[in-house]
């Protein structure tokens, strides 16, 4: 049975533990590539750290922490060509646009509930932050199908979690991908939890990758805390997609070391010692160890990497705070290309009522 096989199959892994488990290499990745990956990891990490601080300070609203999910996002990003490939994030990947050059202020504005947090998906080939679980999966599949149907070389990646695999939207989307032979990568971040719901209440499958056979597509499992393993797996999946061989389901297995979000208290539903243990071995630390062992990084390098980004993010937060209150007209002018007459009446009614003043 495939379940057993999958179960016995080791998670794909590249980074060793500095002791018994040896470091391996990803063919074709230069030292510069490795440092670029590291730069991405630090950028994402620092943003997440700052965002949590800003939430505590009341400068943004509730926030979905992605501490420990950086390897999945950065490893995937570096396997894509931003000039041709689409990314469809869930709220967990709200800041992945930073890797494509999006201004931190945009992401912070989103979490601050400010229209400056709007972006056009076409600009960065980046779907909007998808809040309804799994609903972005069919979007990625449609985008992949659409590019293929026009003879373009691009592919599309959907990010979603273990909980998302229970939703019909995941199932319908991945099945469309298989049947349409769409150049899509279905990236499942299996962090073991859906808010308070543990994996066992979500699925009885030995591995989520076992679902792939049911759609007639390849399914692979990687260590989600190993940026190089994620990168290699996605690179292969992207190559298959571009070669016209269709979609791949990638299950990145790790553990949610943080609360679900800033409003969540894991103490209510799980034994936090497990998370504490996992934190000691979280993905940025692991990758730093790898780079240090290769002589590509030292304490100074770590400091520099952080310093290089922390100011940008602080500046972004200030930028957002200095924005004037948003124009109330935006409420009415963004839902349709041309607001229907009735909506224009509502607009006038509202703007009159407000006489300009909005908290």
């Amino acid at each position, binding site marked *: 049975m495939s379940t057993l096989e999958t179960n016995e199959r080791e998670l794909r892994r590249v980074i060793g533990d500095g002791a018994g488990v040896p470091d391996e290499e990803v063919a074709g990745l230069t030292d510069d590539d490795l440092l670029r990956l590291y730069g991405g990891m630090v950028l994402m990490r620092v943003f997440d750290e700052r965002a949590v601080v800003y939430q505590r300070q009341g400068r943004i609203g509730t926030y979905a922490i992605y501490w420990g999910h950086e390897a999945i996002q950065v490893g995937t990003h570096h396997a894509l060509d931003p000039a041709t490939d689409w990314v469809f994030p869930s709220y967990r990947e709200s800041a992945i646009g930073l890797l494509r050059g999006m201004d931190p202020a945009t992401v912070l504005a989103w979490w601050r509930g400010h229209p400056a947090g709007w972006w056009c998906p076409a600009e960065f080939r980046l779907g909007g932050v998808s809040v309804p679980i799994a609903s972005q999966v069919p979007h990625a599949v449609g985008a992949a199908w659409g590019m293929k149907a026009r003879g373009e070389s691009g592919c599309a990646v959907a990010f979603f979690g273990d909980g998302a695999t229970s939703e019909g939207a995941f199932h319908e989307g991945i099945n469309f991908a298989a049947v349409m032979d769409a150049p899509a990568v279905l990236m499942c971040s299996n962090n073991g939890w859906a808010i308070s719901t543990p994996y066992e209440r979500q699925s009885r499958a030995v591995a989520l990758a076992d679902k792939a056979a049911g759609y007639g597509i390849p399914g692979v499992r990687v260590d989600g805390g190993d940026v190089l393993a994620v990168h290699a797996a996605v690179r292969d999946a992207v190559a298959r997609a571009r070669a016209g061989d269709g979609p791949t389901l990638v299950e990145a297995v790790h553990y949610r070391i943080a609360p679900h979000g800033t409003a969540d208290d894991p103490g209510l539903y799980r034994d936090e010692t497990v998370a504490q243990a996992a934190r000691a071995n979280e993905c940025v630390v692991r990758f730093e160890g790898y780079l240090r062992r290769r002589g590509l990084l030292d304490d100074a390098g770590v400091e520099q990497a952080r310093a290089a980004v922390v100011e940008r993010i602080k500046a972004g937060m200030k930028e957002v705070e200095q924005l004037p209150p948003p124009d109330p007209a935006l409420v009415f002018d*963004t839902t349709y290309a041309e607001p229907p007459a*009735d909506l224009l009446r509502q607009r006038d009614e509202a703007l009159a009522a407000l006489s300009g003043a909005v908290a």
Partner: protein
Amino acid sequence: MKTLVEAINDGLHAELERDERTLVMGEDVGRSGGVFRVTAGLQERFGAERCVDTPLAEAGLLGTAVGLCMTGWRPIVEMQYDAFSYPSLDQLITHVGRYRWRSGGRMGMPLTIRMPYGGGVRAPELHEDSPEAYYVHTPGIKVAIPSTPADAKGLLAAAVRDPDPVVILEPKVLYRADREEVPEGDHVVPLGQARTVREGDDATIVAYGAMVRVAEAAAELLEHEGTSVHVLDLRTLRPLDRAGMLGAIRRTGRLVVVQEAPRTAGFAAEVAAIAAEEAMLDLQAPIERVTGYDVAFPYWRLEDVYLPSSERVAAAVRRTLEY
């Protein structure tokens, strides 16, 4: 001379011809040409890439259409029947109607969702629903409901060319009801323009879809009684021809609104509310709604009990006159 089905089929050929970014997708729309043959001939003419038989999954249909829009396509999605569009409501409400807003007005969803609509066809359960209220209440969505072959072609053209998502509900009882002149080639009926079906001075009936025929029949009944009834076909519920509608209501000061869907919070309530807000002084009698009832659509041996009839509509008009 074309039936409503032939008119839509003609319109689909015209739109796929006109804009290579369009494609038709749905269950059984390709090889077989659709369970009502609305998409017949499209796959032969434009290929399997532009008339796509999809897996049996309505949320997947609409969800992938969102991605197709992002990569430059203008999908025309068929839901096989009214009630089978319900699994796609989540994608409709959370994404199709919201993506332009979510992108600050920049990423439109130029897609069209069309489906056979309504009752009167003696079919098993869930083949005769009237879901327009779910659609028109949803921000970001436009809703068109043709009542004639020519309008079916013209509204389809307007919908497919519209930069925003449009749901077209096609009264299936009228699919082959009769033939009428349909303009050849390019024929567009702009969204938001009601159609005066007949002029009258004593009372006004506002209707749409299959109920327009019922309203006409009622008007004819009443004509024999010397009552002159004005009949307005809304054609699109959003954008709504509010001025045209209020004009028709003020003209007679008596309003009967007809809707096949269940009554509570249906579109007839919206029509009545607008009249009560803006034409109150012009109204010389209470507003009457003639609608389907707040029950599951009956097994078809009983559907005539449920469906608004010309008699029920005529009686409502008489009540407004005798008031």
